[in-house]
């Protein structure tokens, strides 16, 4: 589960990583949104003028007169997709009124935005990159850092690979002081900045471990004129397999682009929204991904990725309900399960059809344990039981194209 920027920053703040002072406003009717955003921006700008303090400064080293803040506020759409800047979903506003205007403009540009973050603007001397993830091969935690921040790490890795410093951490021993200190020196820092960077890195590592994250990234990590470090963004991906031991992270509607994705997430059904013609309702992650490819190869388009294998193989009705929320023209069901028994899934599908009376054709290709019984069940219900994946995909694509099948 990927947290929204403001959620990630709340985690940072608790871990002692400085973040800009901020206010969250929720999308609503335009005038109300404008007023709310404007008021929030006014509050932030006056606080910046008076206090000139970020919300947390565990070092206690920055007095009241530090010049961390540029005039104005940042208005940032809270969505999990990347490239917000280019998409016009992050706007710099010079005045409270501008901020109100910017909030409205963002929601008009991208109506799926439900939350907007307003932040004090940081007057940075430079921007760093810092992330912690895993190196699967060595089974060690991997810290990546660069003095070139604000750029996506993949882009940096291609364009300027030597600018990236790596530290590898033993998962049992944990991050050691010599590693954070060494990283700072390897990035070319000196003096107090080495210490502060070590502190932020160590705090981010705590965040990474304590919250079962796949990725904990700060990009950009601002260095202010007086050498303070402030997280300009947050990217925290919580391991889905760990959510039951991380109860502080709730699945909320805000994190999803559509209602259907949110509903699927609540149900524990892997689901990705697209805007094509064919709803995939398959079992098995690798097989579903492959069917996605085959649909593309045949010239079709996918309305949604949905996988109801594994623990969900008895959830045919719920899966079909989710597919029917799309404007797809056909539902394509492909399975080849072992524990996810073919007969159980076939019965589930037949029951779902009886109950939901789908308004679009359904193509089935159900194989695996007890597949003979499944074939019979489908045939009895008047559904043609295909047994060849390629054929099923071609059939679905043909239907989607309006061809006679």
């Amino acid at each position, binding site marked *: 589960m990927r947290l929204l920027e403001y959620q990630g920053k709340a985690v940072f703040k608790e871990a002692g990583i400085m973040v800009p002072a901020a206010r969250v406003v929720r999308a609503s009717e335009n005038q109300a949104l404008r007023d709310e955003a404007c008021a929030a921006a006014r509050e932030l700008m006056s606080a910046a003028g008076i206090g000139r303090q970020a919300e947390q400064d565990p070092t206690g080293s920055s007095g009241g007169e530090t010049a961390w803040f540029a005039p104005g506020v940042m208005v940032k759409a809270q969505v999990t997709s990347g490239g917000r800047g280019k998409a016009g979903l992050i706007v710099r506003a010079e005045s409270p009124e501008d901020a109100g205007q910017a909030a409205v403009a963002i929601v008009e540009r991208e109506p799926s935005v439900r939350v907007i973050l307003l932040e004090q603007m940081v007057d940075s001397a430079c921007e760093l990159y810092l992330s912690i993830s895993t190196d699967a091969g060595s089974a060690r935690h991997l810290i990546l850092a660069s003095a070139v921040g604000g750029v996506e790490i993949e882009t940096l890795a291609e364009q300027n690979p030597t600018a990236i410093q790596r530290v590898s951490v033993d998962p049992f021993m944990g991050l050691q002081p010599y590693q954070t200190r060494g990283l700072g020196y390897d990035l070319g820092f000196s003096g107090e900045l080495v210490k502060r960077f070590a502190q932020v890195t160590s705090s981010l590592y705590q965040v990474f471990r304590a919250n079962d994250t796949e990725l904990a990234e700060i990009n950009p990590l601002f260095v202010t004129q007086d050498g303070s470090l402030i997280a300009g963004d947050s990217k925290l991906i919580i391991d889905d397999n760990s959510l039951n031991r991380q109860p502080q992270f709730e699945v909320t509607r805000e994190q999803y682009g559509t209602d259907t994705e949110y509903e699927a997430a609540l149900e524990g059904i892997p689901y990705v929204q697209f805007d094509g013609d064919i709803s995939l309702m398959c079992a098995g992650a690798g097989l579903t*991904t492959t069917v996605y*490819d085959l649909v593309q190869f045949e010239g079709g388009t996918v309305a949604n990725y949905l996988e109801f294998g594994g623990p969900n193989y008895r959830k045919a009705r719920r899966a079909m309900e989710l597919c029917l929320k799309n404007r797809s023209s056909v539902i394509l069901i492909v399975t080849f399960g072992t524990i996810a028994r073919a007969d159980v899934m076939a019965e589930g599908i037949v029951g779902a059809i009886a109950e939901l009376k789908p308004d679009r054709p359904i193509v089935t290709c159900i194989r695996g344990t007890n597949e003979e019984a499944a074939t019979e069940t489908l045939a009895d219900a008047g559904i043609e039981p295909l047994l060849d*994946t390629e054929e099923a995909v071609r059939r679905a694509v043909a239907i989607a194209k309006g061809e006679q099948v």
Partner: protein
Amino acid sequence: MSIFVDGNTTIVLQGATGSEGSFWAQHMIEMGARVVAAVTPGKEGQKLHGVPVFHSVRRAHAQHAAKAAMLFVPPRFARDAVLEALDAGIPRVVTIADGIPLHDQIQIRAAARAEGAQVVGGNTSGVISPGKSMVGMFPYWIERVYRPGSIGVMTRSGSLTNEVTAWVVDAGFGVSTLVGVGGDLVPGSRFAEFLPAFETDPETQAVVIVGELGGTMEEEVAEAIRDGVFTKPVVAFLGGRTAPSGKRMGHAGAIATGSSGTVAGKVKELEGAGALVADRPCRVGELLARVVQ
């Protein structure tokens, strides 16, 4: 002979006294697996399919030395159960649990490496040598999917493997040993780590890789081919050629970001090393036929 386990490998089952574990334990025994003991805390003294149950792996191992452990324990206990098996000195461990927390998986693999042991999984069907032994859960009763033969298979998927092996069998081949490394972000074992065993296995003529987007396991296979570690023919099918960047579809391990982890990159590496790559499962059989007599 077969790789990882054969009919002589003594096996201890952990967490197999539940209904699902017991069901599959029975199938394993039918398939030829030499199960010598089971471990379920609190149930020592009971029997499971005729083998004695113990409180702990140490206690089981002390009386019935085991060379492999098969774990049916739930994801949240998998880490503890794997560490228990490793600590008792079991060199090969299969954990099928789907949903092991990432940070547990990291520690599982780190501990296995420190011990010089091999842990397969989680989120896998395990390992099968059709007709010989099985440490896992495979529909070996479907003959058109699991016929004995000379093709080694390594896979990150479950259902997709059934799909692919059906095409392997359809082309007239059979499977020597199939290893499911699992779909997690940090699997206990990686493709390339099995290549030395397949290389020396006289029953394996070629290896089929069932991979997908994300990670670097396929690239490591390409490297092993280039380095001469593996010299038999390799045919691969990789899912996720058209998957959109940055979206996670399916397995936790199946995500590409930017240009890293894409199928296109993997295909380039594999083909560059001399492997054949099928763009659809149905073509795996015909590519195999080109390289295997």
